[in-house]
């Protein structure tokens, strides 16, 4: 039995290996920002897996929503934490290339793989033969899954309200507490 190294299976296993390695790095990393870098690579690897499984719409969503929006949310939150206080003191100082060479190698591996898959006519034929495209997804989403879409919109609204409520600065909370305190015992101040 000879193994064809240029087949869809091999590309899928390679992307899966990249996803597993990057996820392990996410879990074991000390520094938050380095872990976020590896998380981006992991999500991109999973997106390549989706593409090879014949779901290019899901792959695009993975890149745009997960790697594009949710990870940026993470980065902004990390900036707001000011982790220089408790995290980066214990982590080794930035050593130039050594920080980003791992994620870059994994990401360039994924890029090479994707370019190879797009370039190879044989793989393209096999991929387009069993594709589940966005039209089918949209029909199903706004057909039999309409109620689920409505519930998801409620969920997003709840997330928006909760995020706004919790992340509000503490100042007005203090003033509310202070005024209540005054109301309860007016002679104290």
């Amino acid at each position: 039995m000879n193994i064809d190294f240029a087949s869809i299976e091999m590309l899928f296993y390679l992307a899966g290996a990249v996803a597993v390695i990057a996820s392990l790095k996410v879990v074991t990393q000390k520094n938050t920002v380095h872990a976020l870098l590896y998380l981006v690579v992991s999500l991109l690897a999973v997106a390549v897996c989706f593409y090879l499984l014949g779901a290019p719409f899901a792959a695009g969503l993975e890149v745009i929503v997960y790697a594009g929006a949710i990870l940026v949310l993470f980065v902004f939150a990390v900036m707001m934490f000011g982790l220089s206080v408790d995290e980066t003191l214990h982590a080794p100082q930035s050593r130039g290339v050594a920080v980003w060479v791992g994620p870059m190698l994994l990401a360039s591996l994924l890029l090479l793989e994707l370019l190879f898959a797009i370039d190879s006519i044989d793989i393209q034929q096999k991929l387009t033969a069993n594709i589940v495209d966005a039209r089918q997804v949209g029909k199903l989403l706004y057909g039999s899954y309409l109620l689920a879409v409505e519930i998801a919109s409620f969920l997003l609204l709840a997330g928006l309200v909760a995020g706004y409520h919790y992340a509000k600065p503490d100042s007005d909370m203090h003033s509310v507490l202070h005024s209540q305190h005054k109301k309860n015992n007016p002679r104290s101040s």
Partner: protein
Amino acid sequence: MTAIPLAHVLMLASILFAIGFMGVIVRKNTLFMLMSLEVMLNAVGVAFIGAGSYWQQADGQVMFILILTLAAAEVAVGLALLIRLQHKYQSLDIDKLNSMQG
């Protein structure tokens, strides 16, 4: 039918899920726990897409989109809670929440 066997897709999904679960259990930093939760949700998405492509149905991708919205809402609320935690305790250690006595 795709060229990739369903069993291998499910294996990849379970390995990713196990890694994320390990992260949630082992790490003390709440931010890392949130990231591990992302990895776990992603693994579930891999399983759904694999099943959807195995049976050539779009249901898998629909479920993936719903998981995506769930992850977005979860991250928004979780990060807002973490910002509040950081303001209150100056730390992201999950053990600090022990004072809740819950």
